[in-house]
C-alpha cells in the first residue's frame, strides 16, 4: 500500500510536468455554458478517459512483464521477496528507462526525448484538435482516451514501472495510482486555468524528474541488489 501511495505522490509531483502540455488541453476544454456542475462533469469525464488509457496500458504492460517473467502467472511482492533472474533483468531495464526519462526532465538526453515524443504524435494531435471544441457529452471522454496515448516521457516511465511489476493487477494498480496522482493538478488546471507562474512550473518539472529518478533508482536497485548480495555471499 505504501508503495502505491508513493506512486500516487510521484504522479502528483509529475503532474506539474503535465500542466505544461496536457494542462493546456484541460484549459481548452474550459467551462461548460450549462453551469458549474456541467463543467466539473466535463473535466471528470476527460480525466476518466485519460485514467482508463493509463490503466489499460498499465494492465497490458504488467501482463507483458508477467509473461516474460513467470510462466506460472504468480504475482510477487514488489519490495523484497524472492525474485527470479528474469524479473531482475526486467527491473534493471525498467529502472534504466526511468532514469533515462528522469534525466531529460533536467534537460539531459535530448535525443532520447525526440525519440520518445516524435512517434505518432502528429497524427494524434491533429485528431485531438477537432474534439476539443466538439459539442456533446462524450467528447471530453473521447478526448481523454486519445490524450492518454499522447507520447509523454512521464507515462512511459510509469509504464516501464508497471511492466517491472510483472502482473496484470499490480501493473494496473501502478498506473491507476499514478493516474489518480495527476488528477488534482489537472482538475485544478481545468478550474483555475494558467495560475502557476512559469518559474513554479519549472520547479514542478524538476520535482517530477527527481521523483522518477528516485523511483528508477529503487527499481534498478531491486534488480541489481540481489545479484550484488548474491555475489557478496558467494
Amino acid at each position: 500500500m505504501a508503495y502505491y501511495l508513493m506512486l500516487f505522490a510521484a504522479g502528483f509531483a509529475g503532474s506539474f510536468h503535465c500542466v505544461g502540455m496536457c494542462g493546456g488541453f484541460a484549459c481548452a476544454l474550459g467551462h461548460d455554458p450549462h453551469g458549474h456542475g456541467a463543467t466539473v462533469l466535463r473535466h471528470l469525464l476527460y480525466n476518466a478517459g485519460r485514467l482508463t488509457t493509463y490503466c489499460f496500458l498499465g494492465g497490458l504492460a504488467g501482463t507483458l512483464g508477467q509473461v516474460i517473467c513467470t510462466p506460472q502467472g504468480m504475482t510477487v511482492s514488489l519490495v523484497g521477496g524472492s525474485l527470479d533472474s528474469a524479473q531482475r533483468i526486467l527491473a534493471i531495464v525498467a529502472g534504466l528507462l526511468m532514469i533515462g526519462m528522469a534525466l531529460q526532465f533536467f534537460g539531459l538526453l535530448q535525443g532520447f526525448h525526440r525519440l520518445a515524443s516524435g512517434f505518432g504524435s502528429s497524427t494524434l494531435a491533429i485528431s485531438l484538435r477537432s474534439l476539443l471544441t466538439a459539442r456533446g457529452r462524450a467528447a471530453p471522454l473521447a478526448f481523454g482516451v486519445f490524450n492518454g496515448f499522447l507520447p509523454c516521457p512521464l507515462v512511459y516511465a510509469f509504464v516501464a514501472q508497471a511492466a517491472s511489476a510483472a502482473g496484470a493487477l499490480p501493473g494496473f494498480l501502478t498506473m491507476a495510482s499514478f493516474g489518480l496522482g495527476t488528477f488534482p493538478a489537472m482538475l485544478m488546471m481545468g478550474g483555475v486555468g494558467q495560475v502557476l507562474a512559469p518559474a513554479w512550473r519549472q520547479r514542478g518539472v524538476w520535482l517530477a524528474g527527481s521523483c522518477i529518478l528516485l523511483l528508477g533508482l529503487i527499481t534498478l536497485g531491486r534488480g541489481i541488489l540481489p545479484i550484488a548480495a548474491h555475489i557478496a555471499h558467494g
Partner: protein
Amino acid sequence: MTDDRLCRHCLLTIGPRAMRRTVNGENCAFCCYGCCIAFQVRSGKSEEWEAAWLLIRLGVGGFLSMNIMLFSLLLYAGAFTGVDARLLPWVHLLLWIFATPALVILGGPFLRETWLDGVQGRLRSSALIVVGVGAAYIYSAFAVIERGTHVYFDTATMVLMLFTVGRYLEAAGRARAARDLEPLLAAESECATVVNGGAETRRPVREVDARMLVRVRPGERIPVDGVVTEGESHTDEAVITGESRQVAKSVGSPVIAGSINLDGPLLIQSSGAGTATRWAQICRSVRDALVRRSPTQRIADRVVGASVPVVLALGGLTMLYWAQWLPLERALLFGLAVLVVACPCAVGLAAPLATSLGIGRLARCGCLVRDPGVLEALARTRLLAFDKTGTLTSGRAHVVGIESDGAGTDEVLARAAGLERYSEHGFGHAITTAAAVRGLDLVVTGDVRILPGRGIRGNADGKAVVAGNGALMSELGWSVAPALSEHGRSLEADGYSVIYIGWGEQVRAALALDDSVLPEARSTVEALRSRGLHVLLLSGDLAHATQRVAVAAGIQDAQSGLSPEAKRAALRQLRQRYNVVAMVGDGLNDGPVLADADIGIAVGSATDLARETAALVLPRDGLWMLPWVVDVARAVRMTILTNLMWAFGYNCIAVTLAMLGWLQPVLAAAVMAGSSIIVVLNSLRLERLPDPIPSAAPDQSAAFESAPAMHTSSLPIIAG
C-alpha cells in the same frame, strides 16, 4: 469538382462498398471505412460535427473496450479467484454492459457494409468480422445469463477495435500514395485568379476563356496556356515535358498550363479555353487510367470474392471439428480466429495501390499511362520494336551532301537558299539552315513561284533559278551532266531525298537530304539492351535509309520497306516468339500499329491525347525516358507480386494455424491488420524510385532543337 469513381482520400477506385459522407459541405465518396475516418481526421474542420462525431465514437469505443480488456486481463491473471469468486458473475455482467454499446459503436460500420452487400447478394470481408464477432458476443451473453465460467466480450471488442485502428492506419498510408496523384487530378478543380479591369476574382479553370488575363503568384501552378504579359519568373514544366529544370519566362514568353511558377508573379493572357489545355487532357487521362482495372486486379478481386464463402465454411468446419473434443466455447474461439485471420483485405489492396503509385510517379515526369495493365505488360515484355521516322529520328530533314558538276558548294547553297527561303516546305528550311550555318550571303532572288509537288523557281541576276525534283528538271528540259544524273540516281536509291538545283538552263548540283538520328537514340537503345530487352527497328522506309538509322542507333535487327499492314503482321509473328511485344512510335503515322501491339508507346507527338491510340505516352522528346519507364514498370510489377505473395502466403499460413487452434483471435486480428499495413508500406517504397536521368544530356537535345543544321557541318559534304 468531385469524381464519384475515385476515393476522396486515397484516390483508389471505389468498389461497390462505397461510403458517402458530407465533409466540409461537400459530398465525398470513400472506398472504405478507414479512408472515411482518415479523411475526416485530416481535413474535417473542427466545427464539422460529423468528423468530431466519428472521433468521439472511436474514443468512447476505445474507452469501453479498454475497460473490458482491463477487467478481462485481471480475470485471466486470476484476480477474482478464491474469496472474490462470488464477484465473478457481477464482473461478467459489468463486461456485458460495457460490451453492448462498444459493439454497437465499433461494429456499426462493419454491420452496415455487410447489410448493404447482403442486399446486393454479395459476401465480403466485413461479413467475416460480423459473423465472428457476433457469435462471440451472443455466446458470451448466454454465458452471463447462465452464469457460465467464461465470457469473450474482450475478444469481440478487441477484434473490432484492432480492425478499426488497422483500417485507419492503412488509409493514412494510402493518403501518402495519393499525395503524388492529387496535383495531377486537380486541373479541372483548380481555380484561376482572373484579372478584369483592376478587379481580381477566383474562378474555376473551366470558366476561363481565350484572351482573359490570369495572375499567377510564385509557387502556384499555372492554370492555363498563354503568353506572359507582365512580370518575370522561372517555371518548372516537368509535368508536361518530363524534364525538371527551370525555364526563364519574361514578357512575351509562352507558358504551359500545369507548369509551376517558381519565383515571380506573372500576368498571363490565356490563349485558349481552360479545359482544352494539354494539362487538362493529362488529368482526364490519369483519372481514366486510375478507374480502370488491370488484369491482375481483376483476378485478385475474383479471388477475394470467392474466398469469403470458403473462409466462412472453413470457420464453421473448424468449430464443428474442435467441438467434438473441446468445450463449445473453445471451439467457437478457434472458429472465430479462422474468420478473423482470413480476411482478404490485403489481397484486394495489393495491385491497385502499387499501380496507382506507378501511374502517379510516371505522370509527374510527363509520362502518361492510359491503361493500368500496360505497366505489368511492359515489365514482362522482352521485345521493343521501334518505328524509325519521328521516333528514333527527329523527323526533320537536313542537308547531308552536295553533288555538283563544277559549281562551288558555297555558290550552290547560296543560290538554293536564296530561292528556298520563300518555301514553307521542310526541305526548304533544311537548305536555308545549311546556308546559314556556313555563314553565306544569299543570292537575292525575285519573281519566286512555288510549283506544288515539284519544286520552286525564281529569277536571280536576270537568270532563271530552279530547285526541285528530277521530274521538274526533265519537264523543263534542262541539260544534266551524265555524272551528276548518275550520282543523283544512286543517292535516291540509297534512300536520300534529292533536290536538283539549276540556273542558266542547266542543272548544276544535287543536294542530298536525310532525316537526322536523335542524339539520345544510341544511349537509349544501349540502356534498353542492358535491361535484357531485344530491340528491333521496323520501318516503312527504304532498306539503305533504315540501315543507316539502325547503325547510328546501334540496333542490329532492322526490317525495312514495311507497310503498316506488314508491320502489324511482323508484330503478330514476333508475338509468337516473345509473347508480349511493345511497339514504340511517334503516334501520328503508326497509330494502328501502336494500337495493335500489346503495349503501344508513343513518343514525341501526342498533340491531341484524346486521339492517341497508344497505351503509354511519353512527352515530346522523351525517348531518353524509356529505360526509366521500363524500370518503373518493373518495380511496379515486382511490388504487386511481392504484395500478392505476402497477402496470399500470409493468409494460407495464418488460416492453417488458426484451424489448428494455435492462434488467439485477438492476436489474429492484430496480425491481420498488420498484414494490410505491410502491403501499404511495401507499395510506398515505389515513392522512393529515382527520377529519370537523361542518358543524353537534355541540353544537348535542346541545342539540337534550335539549330538542327549544326549536325550537317559535322557530316562529310560530298563536293563534286
